[in-house]
């Protein structure tokens, strides 16, 4: 998809991402996704393939057995999801026919950026593995916000300790579930990412994905002891929380340390190594989802290809072309930034003023 900035390319990719994952990597609130002055937004997509449709999975492919997916967003809140015209009880039930992995310029900061970026990356993977994870994430986020407001507004009065106990109990339970799921997902991603890193570096760079939970957790994962550990640590940090106005333990403090040859890549990796590493992480994500669902997910490359040098473009092209191959939706401002091989194997469409041209 070729078009100048602001013509609607990213919008289109975002719409596909929404249908596939119910999320947008760009905004967290539906209000930002709805056109100004409008009460609702509607995303509708037809995806072909499905189980047995080898290599044909994709948006708009001649869908004989395709699924018509529809997601309606409302300014006043609440969403409606439909599949083949049928209203779904939960929007989560929309996830499945259209698995996708997004890769945008924002992801290039994955290695260098703040820990929150790496948590979001991991969360997106877990969400694909286990859609109910969305419920846990949003519940934990709400607990954090309510807890922070409790302290900021001084609403506890004489019973502040009892109220914090009530929050601790819930956060220990949900926090432990987040820790466990993140750790498990990392364990599955690590061998895949390590293999890609070796491939992309042309040999022997050893990659480790080291989970550093925001709670001190001993031993192998086990729900009860981890929950007790988190509950205990939540209680221990209360004095400092009251001073700093910030809860000091829990999954919102998780870090995923990326190590190359035993050194943190964030600090010691060269710019080129960091780029390759981002690529390796995204490819691992892609492969894990393919392994799990037995079908290649759709890859959305939003304005990112032009940011990669020709060598890495080439490596990416080879990687997504392996086996049955992945369908990719790629956006860019002009064709010139692509290597010839990309241009040759692609169908080119132009996006102008929110419309798709020839």
């Amino acid at each position: 998809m070729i078009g100048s900035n602001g013509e609607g390319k990213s919008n289109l990719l975002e719409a596909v991402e929404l249908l596939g994952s119910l999320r947008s990597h760009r905004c967290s609130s539906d209000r930002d996704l709805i056109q100004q002055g409008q009460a609702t937004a509607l995303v509708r997509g037809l995806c072909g393939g499905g189980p047995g449709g080898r290599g044909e999975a994709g948006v708009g492919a001649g869908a004989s057995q395709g699924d018509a997916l529809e997601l309606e967003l409302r300014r006043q809140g609440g969403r409606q999801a439909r599949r083949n015209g049928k209203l779904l009880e939960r929007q989560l039930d929309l996830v499945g026919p259209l698995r996708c992995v997004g890769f945008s310029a924002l992801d290039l900061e994955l290695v260098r950026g703040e820990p929150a970026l790496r948590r979001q990356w991991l969360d997106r993977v877990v969400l694909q593995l286990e859609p109910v994870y969305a419920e846990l994430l949003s519940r934990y986020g709400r607990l954090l916000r309510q807890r922070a407001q409790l302290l900021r507004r001084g609403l506890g009065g004489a019973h502040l300790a009892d109220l914090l106990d009530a929050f601790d109990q819930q956060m220990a339970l949900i926090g432990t579930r987040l820790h466990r799921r993140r750790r498990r997902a990392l364990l599955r991603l690590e061998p895949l990412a390590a293999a890609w890193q070796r491939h992309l570096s042309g040999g022997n760079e050893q990659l480790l994905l080291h989970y550093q939970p925001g709670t001190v957790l001993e031993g192998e994962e086990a729900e009860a002891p981890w929950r007790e550990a988190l509950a205990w640590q939540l209680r221990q940090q209360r004095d400092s929380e009251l001073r700093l106005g910030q809860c000091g333990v829990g999954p919102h403090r998780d870090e995923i340390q990326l190590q190359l040859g035993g050194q943190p890549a964030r600090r010691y990796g060269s710019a080129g190594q960091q780029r390759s590493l981002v690529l390796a992480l995204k490819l691992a994500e892609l492969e894990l989802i393919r392994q799990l669902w037995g079908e290649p997910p759709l890859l959305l490359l939003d304005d990112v290809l032009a940011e990669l040098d020709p060598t890495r473009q080439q490596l990416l092209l080879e990687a997504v072309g392996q086996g049955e191959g992945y369908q990719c939706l790629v956006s860019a401002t002009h064709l010139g930034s692509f290597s010839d091989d990309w241009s040759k194997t692609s169908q080119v469409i132009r996006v102008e003023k929110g419309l798709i041209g020839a």
Partner: protein
Amino acid sequence: MTCEIPLSGFTRPLARLIDQFERLPGIGPRTAQRLALHLLRQPEEQIHSFADALLAARSQVGQCQSCFHLSAEPLCEICRNQERHTGILCVVADSRDLLALERTREYKGQYHVLGGLISPMDGVGPELLHIQPLVNRVDRDQISEVILALTPSVEGDTTSLYLARLLKPFTQVSRIAYGLPVGSELEYADEVTLARALEGRRPME
């Protein structure tokens, strides 16, 4: 000053009436017009008694002094009913939840209406709710069991856990067992589900 756009074509007093209906929850422009036009066709006595009912409800309905359910008397019907058990008390967020539970006909004890849920984001701490009167009541009336019937949201669970801590020194505390899907509202649960939830209540940790 309101609504010139959709109500053009209606004479002013009628537009005003439609506008009033539209302010009600769950009523859109079309329904508002239908209701207003319907009222216009009614005999004048009917309109008088409708208007009286509105004003009377507003001026006479307050809260029960004991349980904080809506009531025109100092004590509501449920609190006055001699046939209900006095030793068991069910805590709900608001009167709508109380009515939902009453519809099950399963429960014969007392109620206590909190007037909301703890939600610091919305500026609602415990002291804005009828929590202290609840603790006093449980202590004074020798309540042997308190059932917490609050929506299982973050706010509902926070309120439940908090109340359990406050009330445990005085009584046994249980909460209704949710067969309800996470995120659902108590008010909208059907009677069978609610009745089952009441039966399957569990002591709180």
